[in-house]
């Protein structure tokens, strides 16, 4: 037995034969499912009293709002072995996503293994395995010792607040999109939406229909991709372009030409020209923003310079009065329950294929990617990668260590398909989905080879 068996005067429950998955959202569920499928014994703990993570609007850490809909179409979004129902539309509403996740959990028997209303308070790494302090639904704290830890706590919940001069003395309301739930919060007010992520654009569109006036402040000029092109979900069209496997510059030129064809010139709507190539920022998929700009319901503005009383002053010197400034400025990656330094790399954890710890075989993170496409499908394959790797580790720990060493040589390969992403915290975990899928497929083939060699 390693280390102490007592903590806080309590016996540590020995669960070293099991894997602990933190979180029962879209990532934790597929991690648990794929690990169980490979024969691993799995416990899942979930802070909320229900499953679904971000997609359960009731959840305290949920960041969906009433109008949230998918921005990637079904084939890219769904778990590949559990497709979204034929009856569902191309782009699912968040309530449909939650129903889908609940069906996934029920089908694979996961709803029975999730311990709900259970919070991870503390994680103490041992030479091998972890002691984990949990608080259950009854509020009592207890310790357990696990052989392995899989972190799937999500990365879109801890709001990133910008700071501008005069912000503290602004007389209107300041709100982060984390606290945004419904268009009622905008009704009849003078609203400045800051940020042109997909959330910022969604809220600007909603404000255009509910608010008294709407200003949309963006740091730079972006590409706005349509949701439909040529009568198909646009991501299904754009993947035809990806499938050509052309040089990235040519691909980008084709995308830009398609955007020109389908959307037209942004300048014509009164928006500035994008200062970067297509795909160099996380794609914004919104067909309605330009429509409302064209109807004068949204006034584009540059970055905020400072606040002055009830006014917001922009970097071009223009100033507007506002009742509400809504920061749709994104989220920070945080693992508050982990000791500092357990994950290498700081703000952007340095993990193999964003999943495996480069040294520890008992620690992995699932779901820590921001793809330019659907999330669940790629996270499924992350989980299969992890399960295959753990199978290798279970059969031959030395072979698993060799794999980590070999894979670490490509630690800097971030599956971005050679795209020069604009430098921003927003792109810390950005992956280009086609490249990431290709890399995962290669990794899985390599692991299968090594597994076969061990088995032989």
């Amino acid at each position, binding site marked *: 037995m390693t280390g102490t068996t007592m903590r806080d005067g309590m016996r540590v429950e020995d669960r070293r034969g099991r894997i602990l998955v933190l979180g029962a959202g879209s990532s934790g569920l597929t991690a648990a499912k794929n690990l169980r499928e490979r024969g691993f014994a799995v416990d899942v703990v979930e802070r909320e009293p229900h499953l679904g993570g971000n997609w359960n609007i009731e959840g305290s850490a949920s960041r969906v709002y009433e109008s949230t809909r998918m921005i990637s179409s079904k084939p890219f979004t769904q778990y590949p072995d559990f497709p979204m*129902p034929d009856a569902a539309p191309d782009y699912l509403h968040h309530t449909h996503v939650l129903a889908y996740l609940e069906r996934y959990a029920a089908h694979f028997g996961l709803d029975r293994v999730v311990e709900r209303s259970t919070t991870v308070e503390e994680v103490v790494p041992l030479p091998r395995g972890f002691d984990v302090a949990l608080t259950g639904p009854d509020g009592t704290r207890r310790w357990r010792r696990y052989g392995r830890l899989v972190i799937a706590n999500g990365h879109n919940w801890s709001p990133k607040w910008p700071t501008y001069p005069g912000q503290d003395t602004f007389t209107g309301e300041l709100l982060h999109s984390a606290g945004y739930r419904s268009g009622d919060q905008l009704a009849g007010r003078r609203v400045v939406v800051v940020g042109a992520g997909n959330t910022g654009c969604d809220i600007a569109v909603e404000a255009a229909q509910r608010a008294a006036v709407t200003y949309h402040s963006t740091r730079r000029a972006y590409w706005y991709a349509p949701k439909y092109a040529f009568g198909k979900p646009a991501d299904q069209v754009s993947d035809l372009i990806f499938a050509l496997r052309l040089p990235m510059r040519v691909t980008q030129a084709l995308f830009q030409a398609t955007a020109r064809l389908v959307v037209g010139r942004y300048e014509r709507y009164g928006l500035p020209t994008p200062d970067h190539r297509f795909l160099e920022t996380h794609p914004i998929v919104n067909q309605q923003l330009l429509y409302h700009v064209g109807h004068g319901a949204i006034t584009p503005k540059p970055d905020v310079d400072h606040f002055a009383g009830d006014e917001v002053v922009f970097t071009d010197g223009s100033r507007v009065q506002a009742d509400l400034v809504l920061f749709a400025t994104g989220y920070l990656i945080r693992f508050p329950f982990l000791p500092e330094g357990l994950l290498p790399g700081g703000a952007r954890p340095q993990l193999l294929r964003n999943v495996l710890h480069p040294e520890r075989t008992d620690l992995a993170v699932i779901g820590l990617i921001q793809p330019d496409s659907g999330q669940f499908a790629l996270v499924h394959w992350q989980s299969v990668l992890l399960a295959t790797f753990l199978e290798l580790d279970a059969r031959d720990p030395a072979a698993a260590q060799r794999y980590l060493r070999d894979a670490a040589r490509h630690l800097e390969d971030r599956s971005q398909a050679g795209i020069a992403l604009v430098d921003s915290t927003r792109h810390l975990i950005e992956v280009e989905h086609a490249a990431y899928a290709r890399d995962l497929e290669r990794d899985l083939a390599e692991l299968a080879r090594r597994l076969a060699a061990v088995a032989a």
Partner: protein
Amino acid sequence: MSRGARVRGEKVQRRLDWTFPPAPIEREVVHARPEAPVPGRPPVLCVHGAGMGAWAFERWLPALAAAGWHGVAVSLRGHGGSQAPARPATTTLRHYEHDVLQTITELPAPPVLVGHSLGAVVVQRLLERYRSAPAGVLLSAPGPDHGLALLGALARHDPVTLARGAVGLRTRPRAAALVGPATPREEAQRLVERLQAEPALAALQVTLPRRRPVVRTPVLVVSGGEDRIVPPASVARTARLLGTRAHLFRGLGHALPLERGWEDVLDLVLAWLHRTVAVTQET
């Protein structure tokens, strides 16, 4: 894993399904539930062969339920009571794969997958994609590299069907080619008359060489000794590639779930399922 296996990983990239996802359709799904369900027992989902429909398992389903299993059969698009696609000519095996996978997601738990003939090819594809199935049963399953054997058998036993198929005419096999000698001629003829035309591309795909399946699921492979459509040698090849042996039923033909003697086949399947499918345990 059988000898000389080339190791392959998972198919992550599905470009065709990403860019041209199969169009949604209304499906016919038939259920036969046991009166006293056995807790933890998976459902058994049956996939019919070319030209048939969920009705291909009309004898099996009640018998499955009587034996305490939840039997389910789905009609692939354009078959039985399922909606026909707008352009049947473009229907391929991946569309059928979609239809079965959609049906799987509607079941309360991962099902045992049973496939007959073309349906067995669809099930093999699914066993590589949907790894949670507790078991697979392949009836009259053509080997992945045995297209020529199929065409050869057809040329020997039913050249008219082959010739009509080759020039794209609607075609149905001869009764004598479809069933074994135990089934009376009139019964066989009625069966042939229920068959519908199989879209040419999907039928052709069955005869084309396919990647050998990499399957971890336990699989039972069954062949009719007098099968004139998928010869026993082709089924044996399927079994070998899956690392198992084919069970041969002498006197039976190609229509294993329907022709005289189907009870014996089902008895074998049930006995195997009892041995293979452990009642779901909490792990």
